[in-house]
């Protein structure tokens, strides 16, 4: 039978919920409502006047094939950022988990990049790989590796994915490591005694037991790639060459805060909100089924 907590005072539960509700309303519902309202307006930059234009901001966006292309760009970017940052972090976590001597130092160093702001991370990578000033770009050219992220879209995309993934590895590492340490050693030892090899133990015991962590990180990383990477894009490529690294959130930023087209920017953030909402629902409905808690 289900266990239920009952309150004598009818007001108390609401009071206890109030702080959380307030935070949600002030920091989510209110701005989201504002974005919805703004997306129906065509304001001038200074906010002196705004014309109500119904859905013409959306019509304008969805009729723009460059905007539709940006969905594809975002998908590629998000997929690779999530894959690379999680795979690398898992590898590091498994390895760091086995280190006995000096593990503290390894862990600290691996967690360090998380403290770097996205824009700064972008600039650091640029210093290494920008064709005219980059140290590594110079050596790559010297070795005859074709490398031109200023003009080659795939090179530029590789570069921003690397920078964005690098930045997120630390965060993923932390969670994977915690997840690994929560797996009872006895389970792994038992399997070892039964003759299961290293890879076999990882595939059939460790990875399935890590699945709640992996699922959580999947959601977090997708949200990260969608929303928090515009600083990296802004400092490294500004969306170029062409529009090959213009992801959706960067377009929101550049149309709104560089181009002062606030109506279109608001409409884009509404679309983005819907996309991420749908993605999260899909993840919880279909992927979470495969998670063992």
């Amino acid at each position: 039978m289900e266990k239920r907590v009952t309150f004598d005072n009818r007001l108390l539960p609401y009071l206890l919920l109030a702080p959380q509700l307030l935070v949600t309303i002030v920091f989510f519902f209110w701005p989201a409502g504002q974005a919805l309202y703004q997306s129906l307006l065509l304001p001038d930059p200074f906010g002196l006047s705004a014309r109500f234009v119904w859905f013409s901001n959306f019509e304008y966006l969805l009729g723009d094939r460059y905007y539709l292309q940006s969905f594809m760009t975002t998908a590629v970017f998000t997929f690779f950022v999530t894959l690379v940052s999680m795979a690398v972090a898992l590898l590091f976590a498994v390895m760091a988990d086995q280190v006995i001597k000096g593990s503290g130092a390894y862990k600290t160093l691996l967690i360090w990049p998380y403290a770097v702001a996205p824009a700064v991370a972008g600039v650091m990578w640029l210093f290494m790989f920008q064709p005219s000033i980059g140290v590594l770009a110079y050596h790559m050219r010297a070795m005859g590796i074709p490398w031109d992220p200023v003009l080659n879209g795939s090179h530029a995309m590789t570069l921003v994915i690397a920078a964005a993934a690098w930045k997120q590895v630390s965060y993923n590492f932390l969670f994977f490591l915690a997840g690994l340490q929560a797996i009872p050693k006895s389970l792994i030892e038992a399997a070892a005694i039964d003759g299961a090899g290293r890879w076999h133990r990882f595939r059939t015991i460790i990875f399935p037991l890590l699945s709640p962590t992996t699922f959580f990180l999947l959601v977090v990383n997708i949200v990260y790639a969608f929303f928090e990477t515009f600083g990296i894009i802004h400092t490294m490529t500004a969306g170029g060459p062409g529009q090959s690294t213009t992801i959706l959130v960067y377009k929101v930023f550049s149309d709104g805060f560089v181009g002062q087209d606030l109506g279109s920017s608001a409409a884009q953030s509404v679309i983005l909100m819907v996309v991420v909402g749908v993605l999260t629902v899909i993840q919880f409905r279909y992927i979470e089924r495969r998670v063992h808690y």
Partner: protein
Amino acid sequence: MRLRTVISAAAVLTAVLPAMTGMAAAQTEIQVWHAFSGRLGELIDKQISDFNASQGDYKVVGTNKGNYSEALNAGIAAFRAGEQPHILQVFEVGTATMMAAKGAVKPVYEVMAESQEPFDPSAYLAPVAGYYTTADGQMLSLPYNSSTPVLYINKDALKAAGLDPETKPATWPEVEEILVKLKESGSACPLTTAWQSWIHLENLGAYHDAPFATKSNGFEGTDTELVFNGDLQAKHIGKMAEWAKNGLFSYSGRRNEGGARFRSGECALFTESSAGYAGVKAEAAFEFAVTNLPYWPDVEGAPLNTIIGGASLWVMSGHEAEEYAGAAKFLTYLSSAEVQAQWHQDTGYLPITTAAYDLTKEQGFYNENPGTDVAILQMTGKAPTANSKGIRLGNFDQVRTIIDEELEAVWQGQKDAKAALDEAVSRGNELLRRFEQASR
């Protein structure tokens, strides 16, 4: 012991603080937001502190707000929050946006008249002032830093290629011959450019009397349409694409990334703003020359004059008359011949008044620094036509981004020049229509 020190320090503070704030209150503060950092930031700070030292009624406070786009944005956000500065530096690309924002801006001619500052618009160089003046001759913002594109030449590189280091190509076909020789001598980057849209489309048009947009490049109304996909532009961009393919032209980036490559000696020829002069002079470890932007000799009447880039100072609305009086005084100070001449000589920006130009000439600066008068002569050499007065478009920053995107596709060899320009025109026109609607 320590406690006593703290208490006495606190006592001193309470005694001194009111006196200090009392002093500050006697001076009216004028906020100036600008987009200059580095060397230019130091120079503007110097101008401000000199102004503050020259009088006791006003205290100008300068703040750097990032690059041009960021400074404009900071000004707009501050206006929406009612915290706008008195004076905001806005780049030429933001001019149409500011002109359309009638309630947010207090026109300079009005500020000057109300505070009875002497102000004569005709003292300013016509091609510079024209950019910021309405159709009925009212100056809305004060020109501050204006530049125009010129060609920088690495003389040592020419010598290494077996060319006469004093060669100054006047036309693009002459440039091409040099580029071929440079390439043959092993140069990895015979030519690069900064600000491709500004130099190779906007100025190309003005220089050859071809329109960039209808309605006198947008001066006559927001219902303007882009037309920079004509034969001249297609030919020029097509030629550059051919050079890019053959390794004669190397693309560096959308802004002035090419500057580092020229100053380090990697690139031999460089089309860049005249304001790049200070940096080249400070860093280049080679002999260099500055010459006019090349033109196409088969275009009749070419070359005309080039147009400006840079920024002007806008006075924002919503402040007290006393503060506007201070702002007016500061603007007058900035326009004085001495301050302008010094600025022009330090930076490579154009002198914005005839008096500053004459003063620089008198001081013998042009004789001592050959090439520094190329820009101003190129700007003022001929009477501007409707196509060479300037460009005034809404959403221009984004239009330039579109042009950058399309040109990048050309340099990569993905699109041919005409197709890319057509696409840029049609994408840009949509943005112009949005601006027209929003500012109606």
